[in-house]
């Protein structure tokens, strides 16, 4: 069934598909047709390109991590600074593409799920720009730990709905968005945020994220850089597939996906779906590798980064992993935090916690490859959004003092008024 030349492949080997209740069949069939048509429409593509330039701020830079490379004494490390895109992560490439598609389809409303909140923030910003009302479903647990992102979404005019079902995190937000869409699809577009879910979402998200890999090809050619390896973190897989896809044909380049190793290998302590951790299953409309118990119930996950603690992986990456084209490794919470510090001190760049997992791996890969080689890491997001997590982890006492003073200040102000 898979045909690599088609923009909508649906199946990647045995992975992918459209395993949905009949009610979602028609909207997904419609979406596939509209997406294919839009991608052949020069006017649509021109609009998308212009907004990528003017609104998102593309192209994002490719930075030589000179100090870190020297310190390690291995391969040259380059960082694709995807986190410099508007709203702080790669998520906006896809949000903008699908937002324009929603508009083209005449949908008067957009819904989205979000975990860490980055996709929610990107969607809210795009909807503000395009003038489309927007509702974001977000697990109650994530609403609590990602308050700054909730604040931004609301500032952009989006309605943030806390999800109280199941584990109250990203997967439950996806469930809730699917439930909304099952009755609202006639006037609503579901703007899914990663390269997962029922077809055509994995194909669509890959196409909109592939701008990352295409820019990389141009930037490396211009500067005479020949990559030997590429490293990206993998939650659902959108930044990784967008970074890898345009270069997949270049077999000489090693591609490495990094999953959340969390705090250990016990159930509920990590989000390692590849490398033997996951099982083949069908969840949320697609067939892929999921963290499931022997009955097929979805298991709990953990990661210090809210964006990587999703129990499934996008079907195309699962396929690329199974076929050996993409290697999978894991980075623990601690390794990610350590890498965060290394790149902040050495390069003046603060990685998002998700991206710091790729950062941890690139330090290992650079050493392993040795001098004269080149490795490129995708910094899918910048770390500003994580300050409430990283500061708590890295400098607990100072942060606690600061928070207490903030509370006192707010209380004093309340008393005055």
């Amino acid at each position, binding site marked *: 069934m898979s045909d690599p030349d088609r923009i909508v492949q649906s199946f990647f080997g045995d992975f992918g598909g459209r395993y949905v209740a*009949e009610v979602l069949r*028609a909207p997904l069939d419609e979406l596939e047709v509209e997406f294919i048509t839009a991608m052949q429409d020069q006017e649509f593509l021109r609009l998308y390109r212009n907004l990528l330039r003017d609104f998102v701020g593309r192209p994002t830079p490719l930075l030589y991590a000179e100090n870190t490379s020297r310190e390690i004494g291995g391969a040259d490390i380059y960082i694709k600074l995807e986190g410099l895109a508007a709203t702080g992560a790669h998520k906006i490439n896809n949000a903008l593409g699908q937002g324009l598609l929603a508009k083209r389809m005449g949908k008067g409303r957009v819904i989205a799920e979000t975990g860490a909140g980055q996709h929610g923030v990107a969607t809210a910003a795009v909807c503000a720009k395009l003038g489309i009302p927007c509702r974001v479903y977000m697990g109650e647990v994530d609403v609590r730990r990602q308050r700054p992102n909730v604040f931004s979404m609301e500032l952009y005019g989006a309605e943030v709905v806390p999800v109280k079902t199941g584990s109250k995190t990203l997967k439950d937000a996806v469930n809730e968005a699917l439930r909304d869409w*099952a009755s609202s699809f006639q006037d609503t577009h579901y703007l899914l945020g990663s390269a997962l879910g029922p077809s055509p979402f994995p194909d669509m998200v890959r196409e909109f994220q592939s701008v990352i890999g295409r820019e990389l090809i141009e930037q490396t050619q211009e500067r005479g850089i020949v990559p030997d390896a590429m490293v990206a973190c993998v939650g659902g897989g959108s930044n990784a597939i967008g970074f890898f896809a345009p270069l997949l044909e270049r077999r000489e380049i090693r591609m490495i996906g990094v999953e959340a190793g969390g705090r250990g290998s016990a159930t509920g302590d990590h989000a390692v779906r590849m490398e033997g951790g996951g099982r083949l299953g069908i969840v949320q409309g697609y067939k892929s590798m999921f963290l499931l118990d022997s009955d*097929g119930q979805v298991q709990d996950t953990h990661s210090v980064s809210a964006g990587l603690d999703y129990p499934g992986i996008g079907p195309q990456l699962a396929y690329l992993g199974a076929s050996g084209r993409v290697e999978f490794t894991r980075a623990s919470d601690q390794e990610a935090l350590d890498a965060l510090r290394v790149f902040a001190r050495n390069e003046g760049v603060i990685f998002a916690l998700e991206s710091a997992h790729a950062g941890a791996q690139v330090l290992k890969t650079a050493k392993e490859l040795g001098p004269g080689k080149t490795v490129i890491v995708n910094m899918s997001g910048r770390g500003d959004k994580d300050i409430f997590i990283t500061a708590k982890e890295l400098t607990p006492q100072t942060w606690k003092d600061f928070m207490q003073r903030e509370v006192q200040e707010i209380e004093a102000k309340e008393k005055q008024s």
Partner: protein
Amino acid sequence: MTHLMAHMIPYFPDYPTSLEAARALIDAGVSFLEIQFPFSDPTADGPTIEAACTTALAQGFSVDRGFEFVKALAGRGPEIVIMTYASLVISRGVDRFCRDAAAAGASGVIVPDLPVDSDEGLWNAAEKAGLTVIPVIVPTTSEERLQKIAGVNPRYIYCALRTGITGTRTELGAENLAFLDRAGRTGAKILAGFGIQSPEQVRTLKGHVHGAIVGSALVRVISQAASPEACYESLLGVAQELVRA
């Protein structure tokens, strides 16, 4: 006569109460018991059933125990249909799931996220095991899609009376009834549900369906019961009214 298909969830709110609930439905004379095997991520279900599934899993539901539950009820009157999601079927293996369901005494399965043409071999496996698969359609299902579904010759078709998820009340009017008649022309027996709560709604369906399906409304009665005995009493009353409608 309009048959009644009553939906319930084993181990909700706990094992003994769910057994009493089943006994009440059987004693009330329902024609079908739709037994939902809870899944952690039931995307086609609304808040009532979603919450009940979460509770049932916390109460120790497992697929093995689900089949034991079915076995305990089989042969006591109603036809038993197991409703669940793809993940549970795939994890056990489609063939083995169907064999175990048949061995437990079920006569059919409903798996909304394994629709015709994305069924992972469910139709073949079910046929081999002597089970019937009940496809679910909605009013927005196109004629082309309906013909494709009719092409697998289902004995029953489950018609969701509106788009969306289970739980909220459905207004029955000329449009949904026309939809039921359209589905009926495939030759399959029509079971209709989603938002059916009252005997009056069941009466409206008369002549358009083989059976009416009641789900969330019964789950709500079960969830309000103070004890297994109280559950039996209250559910028996509600179910009898629906059966007699």
